[in-house]
């Protein structure tokens, strides 16, 4: 175990954890864990899915209490914190799962619980002052929406910006960011990294959780690695590098991910073709797209460019206003998700907590749900068949859980995502649409999911992968379509793949192509 610390050797720690232990029924989420946070220090916290990162942060946020161990803040030792204590000692917390109030506006959300008051006993909100206080915060996170916008009208990424602005608004001494970038595309991520550097300069400590290790490499002063709830090691600034983090996380070296540039496969026939589709978010922008068998088509774009909307229309959740869709050359009318599923078009949605899985059902019940008639005889469910399917998928995908009867809600984010994938893989996909499939997923699982997508493509499935992770889009796709304000601004073939090209298309500019006959419409 390495634990040399060179950053702030002389300052007293703001916060320290001693031998913290937290169990859930059947799971030891944290065990004998200790760490310290010094003023002005940026700590990168990494670990596989379910390693205990969020649990640790929840303890600091006062949301859960540890079973044993001590939390010392400013020299005062506690058995555990409550939310008020945590906030009172200057700990600001951006949760992994968003916690905003859709029915309130952005400003109200940012200063929720800390509203500026007008004089008088009635505790009236000083709305002018509130607006004044919010403006600089929104600017700092680079928001492209106004302070009066209802949160319900914002996209997931925009909501994440609101969460970050909220954390900044607290005169915090420690800001905890639990996967703040999981649905942020590259430009916004850059801004966030700048924000972190700014905080550090002001002497504010940051704990930054991310599965995008290169982000950690760029900002962290120290990296703390969790493995199965215990401290796997600490890396000082000069020791931080990708491979080392991976080694500590999973206990071995990971094989280099398949890089682009291998021999391009012969493209298959067109599986799904969308012609001049209009969606309700961008009714004025028709979208046309062809998806071939055996390919992974990456779909990139900036926040709110309309990718999720397109996926929802193809999957029959949202209404198609115009245009037509064909599957294997035959016209297809998808009026509901059930129609899509019946035709072998599956979607892994971006918000797994709300739409991907049923948190209250077991893993097995989630997996069999879309294909229940196949697990039934004369309309009566056969539990045996259900368990068999689930066991198989659990093994295939390496879902980490005590059993397939475990409630899905108790799984870590990454394992929940695997359950979503499992339910579709157990069926027979023709077209697989994945919306941010690796959002919040650890590096080992990510590699597995890439492998799964590749295997699907090799088996002749048409895969559409929506992703805001540039590395991922470039590393995994066979072709990349880029959306800009509701339209496909261009399609890149493998020889033209580059971050620059994707970005240019994403902001509506022409890419630099090797061959003149590029995919620009």
């Amino acid at each position, binding site marked *: 175990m390495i634990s040399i610390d060179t950053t702030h050797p002389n300052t007293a720690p703001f916060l320290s954890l001693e031998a913290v232990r937290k169990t859930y*029924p059947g799971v030891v989420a944290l065990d004998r864990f200790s760490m310290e946070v010094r003023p002005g220090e940026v700590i990168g916290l990494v670990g596989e899915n379910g390693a205990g990162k969020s649990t640790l942060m929840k303890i600091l946020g006062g949301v859960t209490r540890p079973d*044993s161990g001590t939390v010392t803040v400013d020299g005062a030792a506690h058995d555990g914190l409550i939310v008020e204590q945590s906030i009172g000692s200057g700990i600001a917390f951006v949760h992994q799962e968003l916690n905003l109030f859709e029915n309130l506006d952005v400003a109200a959300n940012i200063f929720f619980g800390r509203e500026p008051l007008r004089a008088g006993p009635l505790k009236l909100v000083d709305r002018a002052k509130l607006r004044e206080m919010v403006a600089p915060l929104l600017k700092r996170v680079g928001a492209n929406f106004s302070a009066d916008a209802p949160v319900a009208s914002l996209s997931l990424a925009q909501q994440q910006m609101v969460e970050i602005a909220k954390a900044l608004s607290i005169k915090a001494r420690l800001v905890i960011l639990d996967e703040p970038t999981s649905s942020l595309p590259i430009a916004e991520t850059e801004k966030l990294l700048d924000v972190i550097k700014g905080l550090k300069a002001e002497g504010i400590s940051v704990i930054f959780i991310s599965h995008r290790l290169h982000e950690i490499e760029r900002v962290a002063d120290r990296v703390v690695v969790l493995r199965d709830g215990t401290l796997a090691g600490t890396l000082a600034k000069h020791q931080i590098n990708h491979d080392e983090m991976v080694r500590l996380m999973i206990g071995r070296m990971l094989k280099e991910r398949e890089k682009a540039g291998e021999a391009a496969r012969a493209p298959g026939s067109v599986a799904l073709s969308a012609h001049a589709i209009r969606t309700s978010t961008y009714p004025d922008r028709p979208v046309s797209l062809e998806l071939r068998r055996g390919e992974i088509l990456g779909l990139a774009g900036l926040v709110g460019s309309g990718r999720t909307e397109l996926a929802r229309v193809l999957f029959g959740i949202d209404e198609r206003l115009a245009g037509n869709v064909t599957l294997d050359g035959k016209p297809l009318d998808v009026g509901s*998700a059930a129609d899509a599923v019946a035709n072998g078009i599956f979607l892994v949605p971006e918000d797994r907590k*709300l739409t991907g899985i*049923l948190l209250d059902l077991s893993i097995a019940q989630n997996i069999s749900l879309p294909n229940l008639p196949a697990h039934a005889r004369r309309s*009566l469910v056969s539990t045996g068949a259900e368990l068999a399917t689930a066991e198989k998928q659990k093994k295939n995908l390496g879902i980490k859980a005590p059993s397939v009867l475990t409630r899905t809600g108790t799984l870590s984010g990454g394992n929940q995502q695997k359950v979503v994938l499992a339910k579709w893989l157990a069926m027979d996909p023709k077209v697989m649409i994945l919306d941010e499939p690796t959002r919040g997923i650890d590096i080992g699982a990510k590699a597995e999911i890439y492998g799964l997508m590749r295997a699907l493509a090799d088996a002749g499935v048409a895969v559409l992968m929506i992703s805001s992770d540039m590395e991922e889009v470039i590393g995994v796709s066979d072709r990349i379509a880029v959306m800009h304000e509701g339209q496909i601004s261009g399609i890149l073939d493998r020889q033209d793949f580059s971050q620059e090209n994707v970005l240019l298309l994403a902001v509506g500019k022409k890419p630099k192509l090797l061959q003149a006959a590029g995919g620009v419409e």
Partner: protein
Amino acid sequence: MSKKDLGLLILILVVGAVVTAINPRFLSTINLANTSNLVALFGILSIGQAFVIITGGIELSVGSLIALLGTLFIDFIAVREVNWPLAFVLILVLGAIIGFVHGWLITRLKLQPFVVTLCGLLIYRGVARFYTADGTAGFAFGQNFPDLEFLTAGRSGGVPNSFIALIVISIVMWVVLHRSVFGRYLYAIGKNEEAAKYSGIRTDRVVTSAYVICGVLTALSAIYFAMYTRSISPASHGQFYELYAIAAAVLGGFSLRGGEGSLVGVILGTVLLQELQNLVNLLGIPSSLNFAVMGGVILIGVLVDQQWGVFRARRRMMEATRQNVAGAPAE
């Protein structure tokens, strides 16, 4: 049978034992038959309600529906002299149609179940009262329908035929709710409708079906109630029966948030409620306290159930902690 249901059963038996100790006639065959008849009538109603509650919905109009459909049934066979099996089927179909309309308004037009069925509560009773011009629908003296009366109010070997019907319906509905694909869909939708939709379930159809089932069972119980009272004043007939049905479901472990509850639970809930009503009469408690006793027992039942759950969870956690502390060095 789940632990929850077992607890309820024990409560029913304990109350029964206490009442028997005070008034042994509680266990007389005639009292058991009378009470089981009402258990059947309210049970059929409550099963219907349970199907709706499990989807996270609610059906407030059942009391009014019992007034409307009962009035129509008696009017059909007593006044208009429709052949009774035909009238019987007509009423069930009407129940199904009304359930369908509720389901349609809720799933297609996205209205809230509480609102739709609250309007139903207001409208159906009004229609029934208008239909009879605020009078009473009833049989003339000596008007008899021996077959119908045997089926609805008759007894076979001392057991009310309505109770036999309840048992048959319960078994069928138990299979539907706990073993069938449809039942699983109901639970899934109750837990998270969006996610169920994303899994390719036609949630609109499933939810609508639940309201149709509720409508049909309500119509059936409306006929039973009509044949029990043999006379209906639409202004008061069936008033508050939706509360009985909901209370039975809640006592039986259903959550009004949806996705929880068992068929055995709702039957036991109904039994307990009828036992309480019976007890008030048998022990000579003032009738004014009837509802108060019911409310008190529901509250206590729900409270004990809830606190018991908390206690168990806490104990389990303690044990886990202890074990883990003990086992730690070995790791």
